[in-house]
């Protein structure tokens, strides 16, 4: 499979787990991509069902050098972190991504 190209500002959908949150329109969300994890609160507008699972919207905030990729999940995280991952890891979810 050819490596997918990413650009800063590109929106992506990431596979995630979802649990009830403090409001009907705000859920607890957990994302794990390789070694990278993100936990936080996300508005339901940034979530969708896809291929029997759930996905959360993110945006690419940094690409490279090398294989590195940083994705910000659009939500409130107590740890206030972005997902630091690698292109090859995220490309494993290519079916779950859209430009």
């Amino acid at each position, binding site marked *: 499979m050819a490596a997918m190209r990413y650009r800063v*500002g590109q929106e992506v959908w990431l596979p995630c787990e979802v649990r009830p949150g403090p409001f009907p329109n705000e859920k*607890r969300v957990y994302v794990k991509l390789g070694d990278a994890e993100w936990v936080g609160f996300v*508005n339901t507008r940034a979530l969708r069902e896809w291929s029997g699972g759930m996905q959360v919207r993110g945006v690419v905030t940094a690409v490279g050098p090398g294989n590195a990729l940083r994705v910000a999940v659009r939500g409130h995280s*107590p740890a206030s972190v972005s997902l630091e991952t690698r292109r090859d890891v995220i490309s494993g979810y290519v079916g779950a991504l859209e430009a």
Partner: protein
Amino acid sequence: MLVLSKPDLLKRIKSGSVVFDPPVSPSAIKQCSIDLRLGRVFSVFKPKDHIAAISLSTKSIFDQEDLWDAREEDFFTLRPQGFVLAQTLETVTIPADLMGLVEGRSSWARLGVGVHLTAPKIDPGYSNTITLELSNHGGVAVELAAGRDKPCQLILLKLSTRLSKADLYGGSAEDIFQKKAAR
């Protein structure tokens, strides 16, 4: 950084640069802020006999069972020492060249009611209701009326440089404006 005053607030709202849904009434627009109304969802912590301490730097907050009990109500009684999460009635959409600060009301503070805990900043690109963390530090119960009460005010500040889409909170504010313009 400039604070938007009433004439600029009116211009921004009229042009669709700042969006409130449902719209705010003209009387809600003050000298340098906009009063926002209380939404109808009130969320309290579920009583728990035993709950492990939550580490905020791990996924333990995700591993907990349901922590909150959210209900849609027209009225909510906030008792002394009580705490409830609520939302603004209005969905607020902030463009890439502004940020917001949500602040409480001095009249509410006189009764001991605080409106938010430590988190007043609304990022550029934000498009959502604003979560309010209401607590009653006073000595009497306070009845909150959804849709009528105005617990907070939003102050809008102009950024020194407009942010790029990648730096926006939601990354979709422009799309929202395009949709509005297309209506």
